[in-house]
């Protein structure tokens, strides 16, 4: 038969605290108001303090969530820019390969450029982006 271990003084204090907290939790609002007033404290100012504390915690939480979201967005943009850069480089290399494998096309493009009818920088960028998108689509088809 095991003996019941005598609680330490600290455990007894904890138990008194727990029971006291329970009694506060179970007290009626009127009782509590009366007791707080008897201690020289204004119950309404207590309620206002609690409201302010809850609002401050909510605001701090929202601020931290926003900062986290911003950091995640920045990280995603960084990854995305890197991925786009890689795709554009690949498209540029492909265009160079097409031009070098098709002397007629290369010649036409050079002539057009001399006459000022060549592709503008933005035309070239658009063309490269289209090629990159096509590459992506082709890769998608292969995966399926």
């Amino acid at each position: 038969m095991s003996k019941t271990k005598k609680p330490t003084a600290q455990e007894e204090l904890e138990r008194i605290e727990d029971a006291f907290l329970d009694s506060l939790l179970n007290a009626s609002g009127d009782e509590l108001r009366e007791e707080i007033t008897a201690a020289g404290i204004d119950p309404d100012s207590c309620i206002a303090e609690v409201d302010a504390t809850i609002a401050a915690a909510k605001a701090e939480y929202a601020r931290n969530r926003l900062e986290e979201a911003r950091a995640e967005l920045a990280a995603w943009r960084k990854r995305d820019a890197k991925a786009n850069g890689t795709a554009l480089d690949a498209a540029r290399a492909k265009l160079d390969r097409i031009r070098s494998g098709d002397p007629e096309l290369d010649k036409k493009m050079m002539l057009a450029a001399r006459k000022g009818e060549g592709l503008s920088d933005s035309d070239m960028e658009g063309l490269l982006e289209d090629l990159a998108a096509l590459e992506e689509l082709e890769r998608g088809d292969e995966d399926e």
Partner: protein
Amino acid sequence: MAEATAIRDAPAREHLRTDEIGPAFDGLSRDDKLKLYAIEATLLRGTGLGKGDLLREAVYRALEGNRKCPRDVPFMAFLVMTMKSIASHARRKSSRTVVAADPPELSCSGETHSASAPSPEDEVIAASVIQGIYGHFEDDEEAVLVLMGWADGLRGKDLREATGLDQGKLDYAIKRIRTRMRKLYPDGWMP
């Protein structure tokens, strides 16, 4: 498939979701807020925390889901447990108790206790605090009986039987304890 969904959704069914926590705070009544004020004040001593810190930390942990509120526990009781847990952890951190291992952080699932044993010095201090509390009620035998019952872990029927008080007298003795303790120990009595 249904089984997998059931397992995935289990925590959401057992605990309030994070999007339910905000409305739960909005639903607190003025009486609830008064209770939170009084309860935080009782827990502050020995934590090294300032007024409002315990409640703010409890609200924050609830919002971020660090502490989860079981659906079968009233939200107020959950908040009190969370504040009590934060206070106990803060006291252990700043106390002189012999700690066998590094105190772990509070887990999401609830209270965690490090393996610690009170030092003889802590015991002497705690015993003297208890004697001090009883001493403040030497003119109120019923209150002392209730406090002794609480120290033994008695509540409800067991407390009524041990003290010999009916429910009405017990409630009145507890009210006297609350009123006097608030004046004597405005921020709690834990060493």
